[in-house]
């Protein structure tokens, strides 16, 4: 798969393809629910209600989508340049760690400074992690898939180490940090709602990435590199500088996602808070056809799906892990659609 993946990325088009993939995965999931002896229509309607049933539900789902959009945008940029960065998981974890760490080590009292320093620290930590992977890739010639993947495990252990040590809440009995000071909480968009600033940051980042990709000379170089490495060298673009730059940017976006999660949802660092985000973000990027603007709806889809899943589990008794099945199947169907288009093109 690692070998065929980059080639499959060549044809970025198609809301149609995304819709087909999603539709097919729902049909397959319905069959699974039937086999489990439940009513798929009831399950799906519970899911729909759970996702869209009230303003609170919608806010909850938007918050869930935020890290997907942030991390997925960075991954989309990397994949488009044929840099297969699957280190989102670790970069998110480190982003959360960075944000919490700076909050405890260098406490700020004005909300602006507090949120600002914590978000920047999260971005820096994520970029550090992806930069490390890029450095290993560029200077030691290790494939970027391996470098980014393996660093994920180390990142998770680092977060665990911090929570069992310096950052851990005394006497909590659970690996988590103390509650952050109020000043660090991400402002909510409407009083009384859970919806925090994160979704706005995510949309701004995705739009900025879109402008970068299509309207700047740097984005031009990225697209050339993705289409043909030898053309990029011929054009005078430095492949290693570009790789490093994109990895740093993607890492910063993933780190931002982790920081937003800590400051906006949990108000503290919790072990395992980043579970699965990084890999789902890869699916989001592919579902969005590696187009930063399309990553927004793709991320929202995943967020709403997860929000709905919890409700489905409560009301119908269908396990919410089925949502992971839907996500996995969506990914498979998207990849299958990409691969078949690539084949048709080659023939």
């Amino acid at each position, binding site marked *: 798969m690692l070998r065929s993946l980059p080639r499959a990325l060549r044809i970025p088009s198609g809301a149609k393809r995304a819709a087909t993939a999603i539709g097919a995965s729902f049909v397959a999931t319905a069959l699974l629910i039937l086999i489990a002896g439940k009513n798929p229509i009831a399950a799906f309607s519970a899911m729909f209600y759970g996702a869209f049933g009230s303003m609170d539900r919608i806010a909850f789902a938007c918050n869930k989508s935020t890290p997907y959009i942030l991390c997925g945008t960075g991954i989309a940029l990397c994949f488009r340049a044929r840099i297969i960065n699957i280190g989102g998981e670790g970069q998110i974890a480190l982003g959360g760690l960075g944000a919490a760490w700076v909050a405890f080590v260098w406490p700020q009292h004005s909300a602006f400074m507090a949120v600002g320093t914590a978000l920047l620290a999260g971005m820096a930590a994520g970029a550090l992690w992806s930069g490390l992977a890029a450095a290993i890739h560029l200077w030691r010639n290790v494939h970027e898939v391996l470098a980014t993947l393996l660093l994920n495990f180390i990142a998770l252990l680092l977060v665990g180490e911090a929570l069992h040590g310096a950052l851990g809440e005394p006497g909590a009995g659970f690996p988590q940090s103390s509650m952050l000071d109020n000043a660090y909480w991400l402002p909510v968009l409407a009083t009384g709602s859970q919806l925090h600033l994160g979704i706005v940051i995510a949309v701004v980042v995705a739009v900025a990435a879109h402008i970068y990709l299509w309207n700047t*000379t740097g984005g031009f170089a990225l697209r050339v590199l993705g289409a043909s490495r030898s*053309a990029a*060298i*011929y054009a*005078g673009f430095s492949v290693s500088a570009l790789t490093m730059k994109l990895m740093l940017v993607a890492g910063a976006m993933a780190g931002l996602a982790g920081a937003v999660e800590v400051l906006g949802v949990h108000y503290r660092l919790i072990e395992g808070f980043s579970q699965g985000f990084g890999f789902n973000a890869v699916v989001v990027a592919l579902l969005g056809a590696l187009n930063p603007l399309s990553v927004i709806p793709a991320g929202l889809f995943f967020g709403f799906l997860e929000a709905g899943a919890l409700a489905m589990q409560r009301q119908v008794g269908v396990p919410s892990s089925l949502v992971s099945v839907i996500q996995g199947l969506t990914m498979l169907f998207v990849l299958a659609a990409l691969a078949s288009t690539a084949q048709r093109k080659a023939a």
Partner: protein
Amino acid sequence: MRASPLLEMRGIVKHYGAVRANDGIDLDVSAGQIVGLLGENGSGKSTLMKVLFGMVAPDAGSIVFRGKELSGHLPREAIAAGIDMVHQHFMLVEAMTVAENIMIGWEKAGRWLRTAEIAEMIRETSAGYGLDLDPRAPVGMLSFGQRQRVEILKAILRGAELLVLDEPTSNLSPPEINGLITVMRRLRAEGKGIVFISHKLAEVTAVCDEAVVLRDGRVVGRAPIAQTTRADLARLMVGRDVVAPIVRTDCAASDPLLSVENLSVDGPDGQHLVSDVSFSVCGGEVLAIAGVDGNGQLELVEAIAGIRRPAGGTLRIRTTDVSRAGVAARIAHGLSFIPPDRSRTSLVSEMSIAENLALRDVRQPPYSRGVFLSPRGLQAAADRLIEGYAIRAPGGRTPVHQLSGGNQQKIVVAREMDRGPKVLVAFQAAWGLDPGATRFVLEQVLALRGAGAAVLYISTELEELLSIGDRIGVMFRGRLAGIMRREEVDLERLGLMMAGTSDDSATLAA
């Protein structure tokens, strides 16, 4: 003389737009006969073979093979009928063994692979033809010549009665060429027919029974080898069009624009790909370098263009030392480069014409302002260059892969010329182009020379080099064998130098 005609192609016509790639070609091959198909690039050889294999449908004409008419056929059906082809680019899987490669897509290999049995069959057959192949060797470990033998063996085992060899010697060393010729003679003795596509006259006269010469899509000569000479064939092949450029400037008169001193390039395993090459080119001069593919030409031009890091040596543009400069800095110093590979290097086929025209200058106006691309600048430049270089395309937004090879190369030429370079380095710039497009490229290069630029023009096509070069050099095994003035060129000696057998190459080295 030979009774049974194996293949009869009659009146084959194929047009690509206005270009008549094949214009009423007849081709006959008998069993036990080797026919040399001669012609320059773009003379219609490959189109004719594509028609034979059913890869393109002819506009007119008929093909009869072993008494049966072939029309509207697929390549698969041509192979089943007993026609096979060894392409210049091999169709082998490097990670698999010789036996596995031969079994791929071969019905006789069976559904349940009888590897040992097939390996034995390969060993026997290859020994019988003097091919000498180990069925268990991974193809990736084989030399170029050995891979070619795998392809030939594949064709023999599949029962080919007619074998087309497409420029089979262009990447072979002299001993490998002799081996190939031996194999061809054995095949002839077995009663197989062979079409030998080449533009190397010595090989054609050595092995063929008959020569058919194509030019501009027509048969311009057809003769039994015994009744013709190399000189006759050369004249037929090149036709009236080889005109030596008019005025030759004397390089000593002005300072060199491009000078290369002791340039060496090493391969990943420390082998010397380019050894100690020195030369200089003056403004208004074309230095043409000949050589069989793979003798270090690619590495030389890539080192000059800044794409490949040399092991040593100095490169100057006028008096500026650019040995340490990157690609972009060399472009800024006035160095333009036309690389051989259009599909992946000099063009990005999925991007638009406008974007490809901006490829190497995108950080300059009019293509961008600060960090932002200027869509208007891109479009205006595209409109101007499409018009100026007669690129046949609907507009600047058209993706490059929709264009013909000739129009694609016009984009590259337009981009590299429009910069107003001091120095142009071109490698196989007319490769795979039809005669019209080839002429266009050569004319553009000569126009640039007329404007006072220095041109380094590297090709494997001798006639092309002779028609454009003020001085001619030859590369062999990474060394520049000797540079002579166009007037002093002796074709025979040039050929020998390309084969590395010239005993006076040492004295020629300037």
